[in-house]
């Protein structure tokens, strides 16, 4: 036990005073009482410190941030990915270019890849370490094979970490257990910091004496002489200032800690606690995270020279920062290697070889903080439905999201690259944008861009910019109409002619076309693909505003929708994510598929806490949706969306819809391919006018995105009860392929025209055709 300073003073005085006077009984009584009081205080203090130690050690020792992962890349024959995207993805997941045989490295020559995975514990099972070979040819994986490890036709790479949810003190760490740490790490640590760790009782008086001597010589505190236990106590419980009282507390607590806990337990806590660097406001604690942070590798894969560097850095993580001061760091590392050799941990040959190696630190941290602020924002809002903020910040949860880094990259590029070219002058400066990309058939949100600067974690327009949707509403008006095939088909003539609506309170409303012209009767499919306003309002009023509203709600719109007729021209406001939700059902033959950003959440040990499963809900007649999809494809080929093919090659078939609001305040585009659904919005934060329309603002962003991503064309399966027929819309009759005005359109059974028109223009009742059908 360490003596208190007050009692030692008395001890020194007593021998001097005792021979001179005879007041011994009084004196001794005083000494005894003072001593007793001192002891009681000391005992009380010790009990207090003991409680401090045990309460911290018995409870949760560390607040560990939650980790947010991108979706893992699935590799198999036929997987769609470009070679450059695969290489970028490997980089994000912490792979390094190398020989392809060490775990965490890959080798590339042309389109040929050899990849050695590290293995990963997924919520649904472990993906073991494997060595893979594959070729990327024409943006597809070919010749996929497992060279070593468990054979499988499909393998998941470890997912990229895309963010974290940090405790308020901003300490970041990856907890490690002593058993999983390479044996060389603790032995090296002891050789350098505390040779007698396994023998002392928490403090090493000899070391302290040595340090004290050095301090006296230097006239200031230059040496610690602290044991690992003392260092842990200092970091864990005490302030950083070097006072005597703190020193005394440190020693006392070290003794208590050793009394209560095993050496192994103390060592493990030390390995997880020690401060090893800084990344912005976030501190890098523990060897587990430091290994990731400096080498991009898991602790178990570190080599001797890397272990030596990390152990060397304990003395001064910023002074020996290998990225900033590589020379100092190398010197320090080599000193540690000498100590390792001296302690017999490695032989002289290996030590010399290790000293000759470069530091081997990764160029930058393997993941940067908050690389995808808008996406993480949406993830956090989804998490908030089921998790408390404080648990997210401290429980070390693992959150597996649906973010696809390659798609996110393409979306960010499309926004930043296109926005600068739209409009000019002040308007250009003020232009903002947002984009949402989802997987068409699963509703997984693959990418989210919240503004023209995707790195800026501010106003998230994809979620918080609620704007009138303009003509994006039209497919839903026509869908509601086409669900009544006895009244509406794609070739039903609709009236493109102005009219005035008078309300009960005397107000009047006179909708207009965008180009102010009127065309008289036009077939329904053309009214939609060319986005004429007057027919949309007429059809909407005919089937009822309430029916259109019900349709929107069935497709997943939960925000309030006005029943004023102006809603038929899209006065209803929505954010881009809601628009994506609503269009999901159009893209998938009427199946509403809730958007998801999270697949699973597990606790720190990998135990599943929540799964967010795929859900589908049929909300519309697939036949009617198919007809709307036809007109939305026509939009891209002949209508308001055709300028997409300035950017997108013709071979990629797409479907979509433009949206514009008054004075170009909002420019929208929503559309889909076979794989992806994307919504883009361009406008100003101050809701000011622009010179843009849906076709000239949001569409260039959208098509720029689509052009970059390998994907399948949109080609829907014809649903039951729909037949494609050659028709002449003007004559409202069936016709033959090469006749004038012939157009192949899908029709719901029973809604076909009853007449045929020959190429020469003669009408006749549809009897032959009916007979043909019977015997076909």
């Amino acid at each position, binding site marked *: 036990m360490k003596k208190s300073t007050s009692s030692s003073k008395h001890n020194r005085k007593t021998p001097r005073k005792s021979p001179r006077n005879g007041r011994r009984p009084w004196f001794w009584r005083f000494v005894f009482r003072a001593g007793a009081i001192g002891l009681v205080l000391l005992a009380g203090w010790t009990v207090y410190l003991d409680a401090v130690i045990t309460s911290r050690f018995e409870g949760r020792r560390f607040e560990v941030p939650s980790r947010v992962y991108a979706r893992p890349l*699935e590799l*198999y*024959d*036929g*997987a769609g990915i*470009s*070679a*450059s995207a695969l290489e970028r993805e490997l980089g994000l997941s912490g792979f390094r270019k190398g020989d392809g045989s060490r775990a965490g490295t890959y080798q590339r020559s*042309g389109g040929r890849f050899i990849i050695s995975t590290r293995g990963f514990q997924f919520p*649904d*099972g472990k993906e073991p370490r494997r060595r893979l070979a594959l*070729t990327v*040819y*024409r*943006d*597809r994986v070919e010749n996929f094979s497992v060279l070593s490890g468990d054979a499988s*036709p*499909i393998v998941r790479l470890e997912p990229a970490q895309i963010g974290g949810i940090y405790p308020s003190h901003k300490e970041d760490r990856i907890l490690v257990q002593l058993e999983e740490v390479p044996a060389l790490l603790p032995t090296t640590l002891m050789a350098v910091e505390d040779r007698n760790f396994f023998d002392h009782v928490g403090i090493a008086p000899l070391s302290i004496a040595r340090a004290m001597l050095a301090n006296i010589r230097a006239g200031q505190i230059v040496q610690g002489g602290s044991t690992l236990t003392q260092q842990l106590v200092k970091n864990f419980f005490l302030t950083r200032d070097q006072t005597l009282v703190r020193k005394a507390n440190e020693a006392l607590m070290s003794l208590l800690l050793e009394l209560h806990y095993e050496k192994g337990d103390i060592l493990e806590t030390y390995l997880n606690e020690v401060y090893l660097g800084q990344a912005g406001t976030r501190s890098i604690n523990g060897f587990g995270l430091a290994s990731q942070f400096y080498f991009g590798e898991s602790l178990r894969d570190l080599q001797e020279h890397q272990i030596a560097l990390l152990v060397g850095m304990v003395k001064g993580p910023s002074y020996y920062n290998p990225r900033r001061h590589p020379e100092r760091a190398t010197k320090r590392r080599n000193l540690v290697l000498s100590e390792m050799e001296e302690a017999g941990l490695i032989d002289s040959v290996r030590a010399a070889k290790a000293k000759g190696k470069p530091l081997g630190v990764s160029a930058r941290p393997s993941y940067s903080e908050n690389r995808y602020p808008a996406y993480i924002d949406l993830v956090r809002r989804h998490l908030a439905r089921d998790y408390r903020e404080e648990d997210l910040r401290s429980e070390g949860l693992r959150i597996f999201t649906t973010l696809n880094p390659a798609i996110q990259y393409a979306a960010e590029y499309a926004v930043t690259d296109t926005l600068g070219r739209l409009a000019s002058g002040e308007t250009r400066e003020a232009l903002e944008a947002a984009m949402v990309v989802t*997987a068409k*058939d699963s509703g*997984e949100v693959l990418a989210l861009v919240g503004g023209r600067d995707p790195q800026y974690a501010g106003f998230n327009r994809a979620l918080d910019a609620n704007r009138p949707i303009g*003509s994006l509403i039209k497919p839903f008006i026509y869908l509601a109409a086409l669900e009544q095939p006895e009244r509406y088909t794609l070739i039903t003539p609709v009236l493109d002619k102005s009219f005035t609506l008078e309300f009960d309170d005397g107000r009047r409303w006179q909708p207009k076309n965008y180009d102010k012209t009127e065309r008289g009767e036009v077939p329904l499919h053309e009214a939609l693909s*060319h*986005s004429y306003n007057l027919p949309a309002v007429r059809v909407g009023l005919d089937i009822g505003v309430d029916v259109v509203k019900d349709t929107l709600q069935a497709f997943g719109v939960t925000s309030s929708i006005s029943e004023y007729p102006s809603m038929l021209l899209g006065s209803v406001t929505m954010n881009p994510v809601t628009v994506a939700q609503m269009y999901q059902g159009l893209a998938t033959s009427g*199946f509403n598929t809730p958007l998801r950003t999270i*697949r699973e959440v597990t606790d720190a040990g990998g135990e599943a806490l929540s799964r967010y499963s*795929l*859900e*589908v809900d049929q909300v519309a007649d697939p036949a009617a949706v198919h007809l709307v999809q*036809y007109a939305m494809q*026509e939009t891209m*080929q*002949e209508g*308001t969306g*055709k*300028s997409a093919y*300035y*950017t997108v090659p*013709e071979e*990629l*078939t797409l*479907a979509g819809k*433009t949206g*514009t609001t008054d004075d170009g305040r909002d420019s929208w585009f929503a559309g889909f391919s076979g794989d992806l659904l994307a919504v883009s919005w361009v406008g100003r934060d101050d809701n000011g006018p622009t*010179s*843009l329309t849906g*076709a*000239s*603002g949001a569409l*260039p962003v959208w098509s720029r995105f689509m*052009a970059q991503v*390998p994907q*399948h*064309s949109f*080609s*829907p*399966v*014809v649903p*039951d009860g729909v037949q*494609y027929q050659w028709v002449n819309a003007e004559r409202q009759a069936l016709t033959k392929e090469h006749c004038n005005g012939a157009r192949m359109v899908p029709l719901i059974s029973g809604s076909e025209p009853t007449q045929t028109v020959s190429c020469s223009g003669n009408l006749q009742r549809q009897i032959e055709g009916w007979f043909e059908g019977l015997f076909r």
Partner: protein
Amino acid sequence: MNTRFLIYSATAAAFLGLAGCASAPGESIYVPVGSSKAEAPEPPRASSKEDKPRVWRKSEQPEVSEPAPRSSSPSYRDAGDSLSPAAVSLIQEADTLLAQGDAPAAIARLERAQRIAPRSAEVYFKLSEAYVASNQLGTAEQFTLKGLSLAGSNARLQRSGWLLLADIRRARGNVAGADQAEARASRL
């Protein structure tokens, strides 16, 4: 349980010869300009022709002449995708898990399969089967409908889909709906 048996027999029929219909991976895929060569770097940004600054038309209804009118008409097809070997292997894993009574794990496998084969009716019928096994019949019915929407002109898939639907509806007490579905199956 009688219904359960019926459902299994129907789905077993649907998946008889599942491996047989596995084909070479997928149909043609769109390859972005500049990345078709295996060793191609990032798509060039300064040089490619679509990167040139362009004057975008202000009109939302551009004239027919610009750009050149497309010759193609809206696309459609008669049936969904067949399964890739990778998807087949995940479905087989799911089958094993289902046989072991671990429906949640089977669902996780099937969702992986769905992500790589989102236009195959088979995947959705399998998901339906897994939800039947975990007694979530409403969800199962929806996945059957989704599968049917992709079965197209494939009579075998149509038939097993409608039979599956009939069984699920009957188990949910929707006798009329079940009869209707059964009638559809027998017409195929």
